[in-house]
């Protein structure tokens, strides 16, 4: 039997995959009352429009895990990864083929707006081609410099940028026109500096951007506060400003918001869950009830804490209204950068 040595390999793969799946979806068949009607009557897929391991993927996995464990949803929920084009590949397929399929939901964040609005590499589909079901978490942007930087506050950085933008190198973990870039130039733009003149160097991911900052290859970076907090605690960096509406607590209690520093800029990095464009009222009501219950559950609070995610819940209507506002702001910024569609 020459093939015996072969057989175990696919088996191991299948076992590994099955183990992963069953751990994710280990939810009971009983319990849990439906919203109304017969929905859902089939297993539900939550798509992370990226590869395994990123923020979308982790949100999708946590969401399905807690909804299953708490028996809020009694149908099997699985996560599917759909990488490509920063979510654009998935949106193209979803908005055309799944617009009436209430058994496929997906997780997203501001790039769904940005990709739809920017000129190059844009996605023809945006949040209006889906139904916003709920915002689950929030994070904010931060402008960060090295601890030994000569810039003690955001004003001094802005003054240098204004005086000679070619002398200041700012960096971020994603491409121009994407989220890190927008966060980085937002204070400059609001402070009256031409955002196109700001020298932005894009790295592959926030980690590389921090490395560039610490190694002296960038003067300041734009990132999110959750990535900056550990370096702040270690005394390696100074956070000049954050894009939250109010001052935060904890490690960031001494960091002023941009607004406090006289720069009228705000940016919330949300993560939320979406359904297909055409959902019945019953289906929307089902998820409104379930996601609200999820947000109130202790299991979800524990999950959020374990991932260091800040909770912020908005129901479908509030969420849609908020997305409309953020879209306007991103549009304005991209237009100023000359990168709008």
């Amino acid at each position, binding site marked *: 039997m020459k093939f015996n040595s072969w057989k175990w390999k696919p088996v191991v793969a299948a076992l590994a995959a099955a183990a*992963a799946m069953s751990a994710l979806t280990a939810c009971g068949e009983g319990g849990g009352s439906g919203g109304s009607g017969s929905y859902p009557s089939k297993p539900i897929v939550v798509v992370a429009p990226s590869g395994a391991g990123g923020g979308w993927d982790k949100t999708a996995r946590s969401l399905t895990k807690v909804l299953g464990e708490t028996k809020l949803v009694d149908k099997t929920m699985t996560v599917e990864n759909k990488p490509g084009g920063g979510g654009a590949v998935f949106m193209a397929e979803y908005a055309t083929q799944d617009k009436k399929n209430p058994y496929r939901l997906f997780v997203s964040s501001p790039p769904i707006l940005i990709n739809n609005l920017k000129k*190059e590499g844009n996605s023809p589909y945006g949040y209006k081609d889906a139904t916003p079901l709920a915002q689950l978490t929030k994070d904010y942007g931060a402008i960060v410099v090295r601890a030994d930087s000569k810039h003690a506050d955001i004003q001094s950085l802005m003054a240098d940028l204004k005086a000679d933008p070619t002398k200041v190198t700012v960096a971020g973990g994603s491409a121009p026109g994407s989220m890190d870039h927008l966060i980085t130039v937002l204070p400059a733009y609001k402070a009256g500096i031409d955002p196109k003149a700001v020298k932005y160097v894009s790295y592959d991911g926030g980690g590389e951007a*921090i490395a560039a900052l610490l190694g002296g290859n960038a003067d300041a970076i734009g990132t999110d506060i959750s990535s900056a907090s*550990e370096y702040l605690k270690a005394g390696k960096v100074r956070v000049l400003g954050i894009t939250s509406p109010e001052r935060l607590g904890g490690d960031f209690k001494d960091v002023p918001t941009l607004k406090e520093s006289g720069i009228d800029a705000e940016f919330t990095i949300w993560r939320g869950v979406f359904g297909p464009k055409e959902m019945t009222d019953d289906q929307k009501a089902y998820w409104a009830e379930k996601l609200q219950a999820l947000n109130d559950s202790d299991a979800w609070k524990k999950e959020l804490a374990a991932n260091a995610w800040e909770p912020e819940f908005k129901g479908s209507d509030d969420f849609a209204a908020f997305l409309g506002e953020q879209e306007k702001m991103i549009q304005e910024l991209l237009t100023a950068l000359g990168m709008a569609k």
Partner: protein
Amino acid sequence: METLQFLADGFASALQWQNLLFAFVGVLIGTAVGVLPGIGPMSGVALLIPVTATLTSGQDPASAATSAIILLAGVYYGAMYGGSTTSILLNTPGESSSVVTTLDGYQMARQGRAGAALSIAAIGSFVAGIVALVALVLLAKPLSEVAIKFGPAEYFSLMLLGLAAVSGLAGKSMTKALIMTVLGLLLATIGMDNVSGVARFTYNVPVLYSGLEFLTVAVGLFALGEVFKTVLHRDYGGGEIIKVGRVLPTRQDLKESAGPIARGSLLGFFIGVLPGAGATLASFFSYIMEKKLSRNPEKFGKGAIAGVAAPESANNAASGGAMIPLLTLGIPGSGTTAILMGALIMYNVQPGPLLFEDHPGVAWGLIASMFIGNLMLLVLNMPLVKVFAKIIETPPKYLLPIIIAISVFGVYAVQYTTFDLLLLIGCGIAGYFLAQNDYPLAPLVLGLVLGPMIENNMRRALTASNGDFSIFLTKPISLAFLLVAVLWLLVPLLLKLRGKKVIINEEA
């Protein structure tokens, strides 16, 4: 002395029975993950995170974190061990870091020396793993300070050196090697450009936004190209089955491999420390270095054991080196270490400058478990060599369909698109014709991997210098790399002009 005390505590924690079990399960799954193309270390680790969360749920938070990271890291370096197996046996690289292993590994297998190739890969990986760990314990802090000073200009010049050096990988003609390098660079421009955000050569096709997947191209060129060649040339017609000779390497093999393993380990470790450079570059560099140092460079590409020993040591050492920026700075040097970092964060352990102070148990427990895990891998892999080596005895009429099935399954498992399956077949056909006409495939693959990195770093450097090209010459490290790269290309040309026989032409 303090370090030794911490390390001893780490061993105490790693030697607890449940952690030994976790390390074993990790390296076992890792080996399987490495063997299967398609499930790379990155998706392997990501898929296991929820499983480990369930397995460790009973323990207190600190020891749960230690156990989980021991298992996940085991998958990571286990995959580095396993990655060589399909490269050697089936000419099918499972990871980008084992592409270069196909060059000599597959030739060795065809000559009936699959056992020797597989066991030298395991031995090399083991030695490299231990070397990298010792270096990690001793040099973590100072090296992390140096690594972050490495800016875009330095990376650019280092990678340019890589491309210049790849001309030495070539078969009969340096011109053909350079053509393939440039072709790889051209293919690499497809997709969304990371620096300007411009979509290039995508023709509004969304699947092209993220560019061509490296794995698809490599598996197509190498594995399917080889399948097509066997079918078209009726290599199987003779019914001659390759016999597996002895499984263990001979004394001569070991002697020839000792130097390459030692050099590959050190080189791999130092390249691995640089965030972003990674195991692929390390494996290519060490292969090229061995070819240049060898007294019989013409043997490379025809089954030289050093051509297996060096890159396999280097890619394993690089995965050890990549732990340094992760553990000391919280900066992941590769996709897989980024996911490991995510796993630590899930346990409320934030990798970063404070890790060794806040969670010494986790950090040192992990380091100690890696010593144990490497030993387990060696013990696990040596008997498996015998099993795997038998694969090569399978008659082609069964083996070829299996290679095709594995290639298709592997590519689809990574990309989930039919586009990549078409690309796979296209690359297979291209691979066949290119190989038939003596165009070397490895430079194309390296061009494809390095293309975006070279381009991005060049433009990052130029953005920072306001478009002034002298930045590449004023930084000393960058200048040194560039000089070596220029010499690499010029010296053979000059020798040729003076009528001397150039090394790379001796193969003809």
